[in-house]
């Protein structure tokens, strides 16, 4: 078996036994990228030279028996909205053309401190706005399980790269499901931490009160390890919470006997794909087989989540994206006659359709006369949704739902129907509104061989609970061992 197809935990074991070097792993991963990425288009940018250099440094440290970080020598891909000094962070947008990072994101800094090897930038929906990776100025990323299908989004490149063994680990960001939905559609493990668990400093903001950086990996154990590395309070992010980071890997292997798993009745209504529904039902049985107790619960404000999300997220985005104006960095329209013209032309040329749609929507809901009716009301609904979860979590330890109502759909299938596209995140959005952690794990396959993901949601700052439940599920299923054929 090639090194690129292994997990981080396996590779670290081999490295520690000195059977392989970090250079071997990085070379293997790049060999894989060169082999398959023309089919997948998961990458926007790679930095092989520096990756190999970094691998050699780590190998040298290992030879000299110097202390090594937790991820000593393991490759990781970054979503294209995470700043890494000198790299061309584009957010998959034309508007950042020519811009190179002036600093490094805290999460990436933490990866470097633990000796991970960043290999490049993954494709995404422009500014993390989308559920299919089709809204990219760098072309669509294809689903490794069926290259006619989308990989999900917005962290589609990160998910596809992990699924296609083009990386060992990946970072993504999740504002309404942008890690979990592509993880689900690509058959990998994707976790969105509690809001405030991971510093957002250096994450190009889409919707600040909802954004959270998270992890995409091949297995739950890898996910626990990567999460441990990037979590923690950061003085540069006032919204990050000063709370001890648990040793997540140490919590795996705990028994889930008696674990109460809530099944929200509102999530099993019309519109859900039959195969997805079947998978969830089978998953419940699997959990029951390990001693967990399913409990029917109600999240009465679920219906309002998508509308609430699209008001709050777009309102924040309309301000967050205002800075891309061609004045200080990035693309600037050369045809501008005056200042207003410069703003208009730069933004018209630089932003894609979906980004423009959301900026306009967000500007509208904040406008004088509409603020109360939309933004203010959405904030109230957000509180109600949060309260729903607070109530439920008094009765159950975690919540099981499908991650996405459908498996991966065909490229182009929903591009002309934004509302339909927005419903792709119907099961994931509520967790962002409530700030809760959620993980998507492989939970089955469709007849046509597309992955189906399960989502486990937990109480705030109880990532270890959902990781442990996910690990228990993974141990008793084989979905994660199946790989797409990409020859």
């Amino acid at each position, binding site marked *: 078996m090639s090194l690129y197809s292994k997990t981080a935990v396996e590779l670290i074991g081999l490295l520690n036994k000195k059977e392989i070097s970090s250079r071997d792993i990085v070379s293997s991963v790049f060999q894989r990228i060169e082999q398959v990425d023309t089919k997948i288009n998961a990458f926007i940018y790679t930095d092989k030279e520096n990756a190999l250099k970094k691998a050699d440094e780590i190998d040298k440290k290992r030879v000299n028996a110097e202390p090594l970080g937790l991820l000593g020598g393991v490759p990781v891909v970054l979503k294209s909205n995470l700043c890494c000094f000198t790299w061309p962070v584009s957010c998959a947008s034309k508007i950042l053309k020519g811009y190179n990072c002036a600093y490094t994101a805290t999460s990436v800094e933490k990866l470097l401190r633990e000796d991970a090897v960043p290999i490049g930038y993954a494709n995404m929906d422009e500014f993390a706005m989308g559920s299919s990776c089709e809204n990219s100025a760098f072309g669509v990323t294809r689903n490794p399980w069926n290259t006619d299908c989308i990989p999900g989004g917005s962290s589609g490149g990160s998910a596809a790269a992990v699924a296609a063994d083009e990386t060992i680990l990946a970072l993504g960001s999740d504002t309404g499901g942008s890690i979990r939905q592509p993880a689900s559609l690509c058959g990998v493990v994707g976790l969105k931490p509690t809001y405030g668990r991971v510093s957002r*400093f250096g994450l190009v903001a889409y919707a600040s009160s909802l954004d959270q950086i998270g992890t995409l990996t091949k297995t739950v154990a890898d996910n626990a390890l990567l999460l441990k590395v990037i979590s923690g309070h950061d003085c540069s992010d006032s919204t990050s919470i000063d709370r001890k980071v648990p040793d997540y890997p140490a919590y795996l292997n705990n028994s889930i006997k008696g674990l109460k798993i809530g099944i929200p009745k509102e999530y099993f209504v019309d519109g859900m794909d039959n195969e997805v529904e079947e998978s969830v039902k089978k998953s419940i049985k699997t959990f029951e087989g390990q001693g967990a107790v399913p409990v029917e619960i109600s999240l009465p404000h679920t219906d309002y989540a998508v509308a609430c999300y699209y008001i709050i997220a777009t309102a924040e985005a309309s301000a967050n994206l205002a800075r891309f104006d061609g004045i200080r960095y990035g693309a600037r329209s050369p045809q501008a006659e005056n200042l207003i013209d410069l703003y208009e032309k730069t933004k018209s040329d630089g932003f894609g359709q979906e980004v423009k749609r959301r900026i306009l929507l967000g500007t509208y809901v904040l406008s004088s006369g509409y603020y109360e009716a939309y933004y203010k009301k959405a904030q109230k609904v957000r509180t109600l949704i949060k309260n729903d979860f607070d109530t439920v979590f008094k009765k159950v330890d975690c919540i099981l739902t499908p991650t996405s109502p459908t498996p991966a759909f065909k490229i182009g299938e929903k591009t002309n129907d934004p509302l339909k596209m927005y419903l792709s995140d119907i099961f994931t959005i509520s967790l962002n509104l409530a700030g809760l952690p959620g993980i998507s794990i492989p939970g089955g396959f469709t007849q046509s061989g597309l992955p189906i993901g399960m989502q486990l949601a937990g109480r705030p700052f109880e990532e270890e609970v959902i990781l442990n439940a996910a690990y228990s599920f993974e141990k008793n299923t084989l979905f994660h061992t199946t790989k797409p054929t990409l020859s």
Partner: protein
Amino acid sequence: MEFEPVIGLEVHVQLKTKSKLFCSCATEFGAAPNSQVCPVCLGHPGVLPVLNKQALDYAVLCGLALNCSISKFSKFDRKNYFYPDLPKNYQVSQFDKPICGKGKITFLINGNEKTIGITRAHLEEDAGKLVHSETGAESGVDFNRTGIPLLEIVSEPDLRTPEEAYMYLHMIKNIIEYLGVSDCNMEEGSLRCDANVSIRPKGQEKFGTKVEIKNMNSFRNVQKALAYELERQEDEILGGGIIVQETRLWDADKNQTFSMRTKEEAHDYRYFPEPDLVPVKLDENYIKSLENQLPELPFDRMNRFTKEYTLTGYDAQVLTSSREIADYYEECANLTDDYKAVSNWVQSELLREINEKKISIKESKVTPSKLTDMLKLIQKGVISGKIAKIVFHEIMRSGKDAEQIVKEKGLVQISNPDELKNIVEKVIKDNKKIVDDYKGGKEKSFMFLVGQVMKATQGKANPQLVTKMLKEAIG
């Protein structure tokens, strides 16, 4: 018809914190363009603000000094508008939950006390500065100022005359300077002021349509702009016109205001809570600890000066118009009990000198002990008041002691009749006609004779003694 003006002022004060409001960049004035910037204040992708604790302390201190209620819960909001000097194209400010709520300040105007309400005071970040090339073909932005903390102090519409507005501004500046939290320098832009002004028929309760005036770069200009605007509004109404709600710019060269934009063209700032910052929650102990740091404020100090040093209200007001001057005065008052003389010397000679030299009172070589030592020489009759002026300027120049200067320059007052006898006799002999005039009842002529004696002694003769001796000699 008689009109009553209604004026409210919005004062922006740059807080003199070591670093900017949301990043660690320096805030020095006059540094090379774009030398005090970082990804955060330049609005690079992915950056986040972190609130400067010192700015918060300063804002609360100001609030306390302005008798404001301090909010135990306040938050920041984004104010959205596009301009090249605003890197994020939104300004982090405070909209509906400002750090300081209602307050008031009192000051003297023409000897009467006047109290003006403060509506609120809130923290926000400053914008950058546009620099245009001479041809106007190119524009650059200096972001050094971007992100420097500002405290915006909004007054109630309690001001009734341009002069009151002027005095109000002075008091605000005075209070904030006392706290040492801002330079309050209007020329350097560390204090800026916009005015809201309307008029209404006397006796009417309802406010008239207000006009906002911007671009005034000195307190005098604020006063002038208000006076101009009040007259313009009165003329407009008396001429049958109506006042349009608008923003007008003051042109200091033309001494006029000009319309900039009307209400219809006004910005919709689309304020919403800043999601990158957590609300500011303050507890009682924190507020108490800052309260304890408050110095004695100018109005209180003025009142104390009138009592403790038996000064007139006017003198006390001038002497407390800056903390440095008041400190200087009190230091002198500890060294002498001739409070009135100190007050006169500080107000006339000392303030004029330091204003001319553009130095601070602390930089003056005439220290409180040097000044009071000199005053003692006058008291003892060693030098006259007139000679003292020479001595004062010499101290100012060289920093030497008064006594030493008097000795070196031979400025000791001549109080010995024997030494003056010959001079007096000579003056009488040389000015026979004048003496006769005086004898004939021309009082002024006597002063001339005194002057002649003083001249002959290079001003050193004791004037009282000269008077006495001349009178005796003329008979």
